[in-house]
Structures are given as C-alpha cells and as structure tokens.
C-alpha cells in the first residue's frame, strides 16, 4: 500500500451545488478507486478563482479521503508543499493538464501517473484558441509527457495519439520496449461511479508498488543537432552552458584538472 497524492481539479462531485465537472469527477474517480485498494490518499484540487470559494479544506475529508483546495492561479510546487503539510507521498497522480503539470513539477523524483482525459493540443484547436495559447499549453503538456511514468486516457483513439506524442519526446526507447505506457480508462457511464474491473486495474496495480518507468534521456539529449531540438530545449541548453561557464568554481576545477593532466600526462 502506498501514500498517494492526487492533484486534480475542483469542483469535486460532492461539493455543494457543483455542476458535474469532468476533471473533478475524474479526480474523485481515481481517489475512490485507489482508496478502495487500501492506499492512503490525499486529494489536492485546483480551484479556479471564478468559483469564488477560495482555498482551504484543512481537516475536510469525504468518504474518508482528506481533501485540500488551492487556487489554480497560486498553484506552484512550493505552495503545494505547504498545503500537503506532513503528508509525505510515495507517488503522485496528476489529473488533467493543470493537475498533471503541477505534479510533474512538484516532485520530479517521485513516480508519477498522469491522467489526461482529453488531449490538450486538440482541445485548444476545438476551443478555437489562439496559436499563442496553443504554444503555452504545449509547454505545460510537454512537461507532463516528459515527466510522467505512466499515463491514462479515456478513449482508445486518444491512447494512440498520446503514444505518438510520447514518441516525439524520445519516450519510446530501448529500455521500455515491450512495456505499456498508456492505458485507456473510460469514464464511468454516470460520470461519478467508481470504475471497477479491468479498465482501472493498471492504476491500482501501479499504486500497489509505484515505480519509475525506465527511460532513456529525453530526445533532446540523444543528439546534439540543434535542428532536432525545439527552441525551448536549445534555449535551456544555452542557459545551462552560460551558467556553467560563469561558475568560478567550475573554471577553477577545469584549470586544476588541466594542470594535473599536464603534469601527469593524463587525459581530461
């Protein structure tokens, strides 16, 4: 059994006068399902400012599952750390674009299951949002598909789409060949019931012993050819190079190693 932090979205189905909200229902679906497996669960639900209900939830639990609420606009790893208090998770589950991207940034060292009920890139098109917005959502989504160990979706078509998206980030590699990375967990017929049976079995199985999925380094690391990288990757690497070259300590170490090599005739 594991301690699992689920980062999802409000309103959760039991919140007063809350309309049925797919990400909230999905969050609760996972929480109920895993709680039933004997895991210790904490749900943190991101709340839009428009909901007008603010943050809170300390001491609140529903069906025995403790829940906290934070404003989506204030969501950050540091803020989340404060909200979690003494709850030290063994694994993370992120629900939806906001929840999963926060989870990926929160504790990159922990196993992460990301649930994407709907593809953010295609939804951006559906909403007729601007290309700039598409790029913003892509950066959030990319954090998820690079960081998550396993993922779930709500339809078989989306499963294949996500496999393609993962592939472009170098996530299909020798180390995890033959492993299923993306699972289809359809929503319950009424949107609320706890999913049972084989569809949700993978997440329960994973939760019983959460672990990182073996992976290669990111696609960006597999090559040094700039035309294979996107601009954010190149910018990050140039920043890193600048930072390293600006470090007095590293410069000193390089000089020491150079001198030592000169004296001993060794290589770098």
């Amino acid at each position: 059994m594991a301690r699992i932090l689920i980062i999802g979205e409000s309103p959760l189905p039991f919140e007063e006068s809350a309309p049925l909200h797919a990400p909230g229902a999905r969050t609760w679906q996972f929480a109920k399902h895993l709680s039933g497996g004997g895991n210790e669960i904490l749900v943190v639900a991101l709340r839009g400012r428009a909901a007008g209900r603010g943050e809170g939830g300390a001491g609140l639990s529903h069906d025995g599952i403790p829940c906290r609420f934070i404003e989506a606009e204030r969501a950050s790893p540091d803020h989340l750390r404060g909200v979690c208090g003494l709850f030290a998770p063994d694994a993370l589950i992120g629900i939806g674009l906001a929840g999963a991207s926060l989870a990926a940034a929160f504790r990159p060292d922990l196993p992460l299951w990301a649930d994407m009920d709907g593809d953010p890139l295609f939804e951006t098109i559906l909403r007729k949002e601007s290309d700039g917005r598409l790029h913003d959502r892509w950066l959030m989504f990319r954090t998820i598909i690079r960081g998550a160990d396993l993922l779930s979706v709500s339809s078989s078509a989306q499963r294949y789409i996500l496999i393609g998206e993962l592939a472009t980030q170098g996530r299909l590699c020798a180390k995890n060949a033959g492993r299923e990375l993306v699972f289809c967990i359809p929503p319950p017929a009424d949107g609320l019931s706890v999913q049972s049976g084989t569809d949700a079995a993978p997440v329960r199985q994973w939760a019983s012993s959460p672990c990182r999925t073996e992976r290669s380094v990111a696609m960006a690391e597999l090559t040094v050819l700039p035309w294979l990288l996107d601009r954010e990757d190149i910018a990050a690497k140039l920043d890193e190079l600048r930072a390293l070259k600006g470090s007095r300590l590293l410069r000193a170490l390089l000089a020491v190693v150079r001198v030592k090599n000169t004296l001993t005739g060794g290589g770098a």
Partner: protein
Amino acid sequence: MSAILFMGAGPLPFENTRRFSAPGGRTWQLIRPLLKDGHRVLLLALYPRDSEPVPAGAASPEKGLTCRPITRDTLRAPGALPSLLGEFRPDALVATGAESCCIAAGASGELPFWADVFGDLLAEAQAKAARCEDDHWVASFWSRFRPVLLRGDRFSAVSTPQKYALLGELATQGRVNAANAGTELVHVVHSAVPGIPYRRESRAVRGSKVGEGDFVVLWSGGYNTWADTETLFLGLEYAMERNPAVKFVSTGGEIRDHDEVTYPRFLDRIRGSPHRERYVMEGWVPRERVKDYFLDADVGINVDRFLYEGVLGCRTRLLDWAAAGLPVLTTVLCELTVTLDREGLVTAFPIGDPAALGKSILSLAGNRGSLRAMGQRFREYVFSRFTYEATTGPIRQWAAAPFVVDHRTSMDSLSPLRFDESPEELKAKLDELRALKASRAYRLFLALTGGAARSGRRGMIR
C-alpha cells in the same frame, strides 16, 4: 490528370528479384491505382543495397510509368533532381517509406506533398533500439521523420491506430492548429494485395525437403525487430517433440541495414536443436518462386513481440499468404490481426507463450481439413477488402487535384524564442556543453555543489 513525382522503393512486385521488400509492395499499391486513373507517374525508387541492379527506365507493365532507380546519394549531387526529372513537370509529389519521405521532404519545394508514412517510424525506432540496445536509433529516426511532419501536406498511415499516433506526432509539431481545424490531415491506407490468386507452377519443398504428409509451418519475409524468434523456436520445438510430421520452412532472412541481428540469432538457436534437420531455412528466394512455398505449406506463421511498432503497424505478409489461400497462425497485435481474429479467419495464440504456440501447431496438424477451409475464407475476405482499388481512395481523390495546405505552421514558429546563431554555431555550443559535462572537472563540480548545479528538469542531464 496530374503528373506525379513518386519517391518510393524497389524492387516492385513485377520484378523477379530475390529480395522483396514491403516498401516496394507499398510503392506499387499506391502507384498502380494512380496510373489506372490516368495520371503520369515518374518513380524515383530506392533499392536495397544488396538487391540486384535494375536498369534505369526499367520496363513496367503499366502505361504512364517511368521508373528511375536511385541510391541514397543520388539526390545529394548538385542538380541531380532536375536531371532526373528531365522534361517531366510534376504537379505533385508522393513519397512512401521513411527514407523516401525524408528525401522528398527536402526536395519537395513548393509541390503539394503527400507523405505515406507506412508504419510508425518512432515505434520502429524503439523496436530497433531495443534490438540493438542503443537508443541513438531513436534520435536517428527522429531526425529523418521530423522534416516529414513539418513539410507534408497530407499524410497516410497503414492502420487506424497509426493514424492517431501520427496525429499526435503532428500535434507536437504545431501542425494541428487553428488554420486546419476540421481538415483530415491523416488518412488510413490499409495494406493491400493485387487480388490475383496464386497458382502453383512447381513444387518448392514438398517431396524433396519435406515429405508429402508432413505438416509444414511456413515463415516468409524478413526477420524484423518485432519478430519474437525465441517464442517461435520454443513453440516449434514443443510441437516437434510431440509430432514427427511437423516441419518448419523459412523463406526470407535478415534485413540488411535494418535488422541484422534477429535472423542470425534464430539460426544459432536452430543449430543447437535436436530437431535441426526439420528446419528448412531457404533464405531469400526469387519472388516468382515464393508463391510455390506458400502453396506447399500448411500454415503461415507470424510471431510478434509486444511492441508499439506492432500495435501501430501492419503485418502485410499475411495478406500475401491470403493470395495462396494459406491459413494463418498468428499473435494478435496489429489492427489487421485484430480484425482477422475477430472475424474468425486466423488461428491466434498469446504473445510470448511458446507452449500455447506449440499446442496450436499440434492442434492444426491434427485438423488439416478445416484448416484449408479457413484458408479459403481468409482469401475471400482479403480479396474483397484489401485490394489496391479499395484501399487507395483518399490518395486518388487528392491526386486528382493536389494542393498545398494554406497555412503550414510549426510549434517552433509559435515560440517567442529566437536565436542569432546559425545552426552550425548552435551545434558547436551544444557540443561544448556536452564536452563540458563529460569532463572530470564537471563531475567534481557536481560533487562539491551537491548536484545543485544539475538542472531541475528530470532526465535532462546524464
């Protein structure tokens, strides 16, 4: 009618070469209907390095086709493409297969470009990386694939799952955007066969290398990265131990430049078998002889490992077997095998289960009458659905009036980041970073700073 420049692969099915490749079959599947529709086609065909030389302007059975064999280096020479085109003025460009699509993406200019991505390249890269235990293949395939994603106007995939994966790949490059919302960017063009039943010309192995009453399990085609030869071997051994009539006949072998590991490994296993004399390993045989092997066999066998390559791809060889009415024993992974299994047209066994495979062989060997009947039903089904004409509707429609997409953006173009450096300068800086991070001084630096200098982004730094 359009003039279509087609970049594909050889050998084509009507060429009687020893080495037949799936890309060659795919090339012909797409070209033949275009010719029948009255288009003129100039085919620039890449041939495998180990194939027999094909003369320029090779004869084709179809009017309107000119075929020019090329090598990987042909188009690198300055002025090569205009020279190959001669007087041919293309209205559109079609390419099929990884290499041809990559070459076409670079050579397409302003021509409307249909990219037939025949199997998911990144899933194939994973399969190859796993076989070679080397992830650089992932980046290598990506370097060829990304330009195709960015340049293609229309795409086709070999299965419905691959269509969706390709949409996902396009989406990450910003190719699914507001400007083309509601447009079908990717079409499914299933694998197909000419629809002509094979007739026996002579016996291949019956009465010579295998007995008249033997139960012949046939493998044909390349031993590719996805082939689970360990399960195949153990399953055959299981059956051979229990039924002396079971024989294994294989045509095909290693795939030069792609998978030169799987087949030799399989041969090593066979050499150590107490039943090794019951394995008839023929290697690659001339195309016109292959059908005689199909007709001599009792069942064709396909053994997949679980890989996304299989989930998204297609085992086209099954369709070839259908032309001979050869029944199929297969794992169920790709859309084609899922469909055939659902229709009760093949015998299926679980992936990675040699005992189940062995038992299936024994069961089929004991029930040859119904097996033949299944082969006949299989042929009828394939001939009614997987023909060239039935599968190529989308590309034929496009070829009648090819067009360039009106707004071709990319995720990069949406990024506010710009660089002053040339690609060469950027490469030099990235090389500098890599060298720095490979140095002993950097390792000391990390140790002294407690790794604080390491990027917070997971997986970014080795």
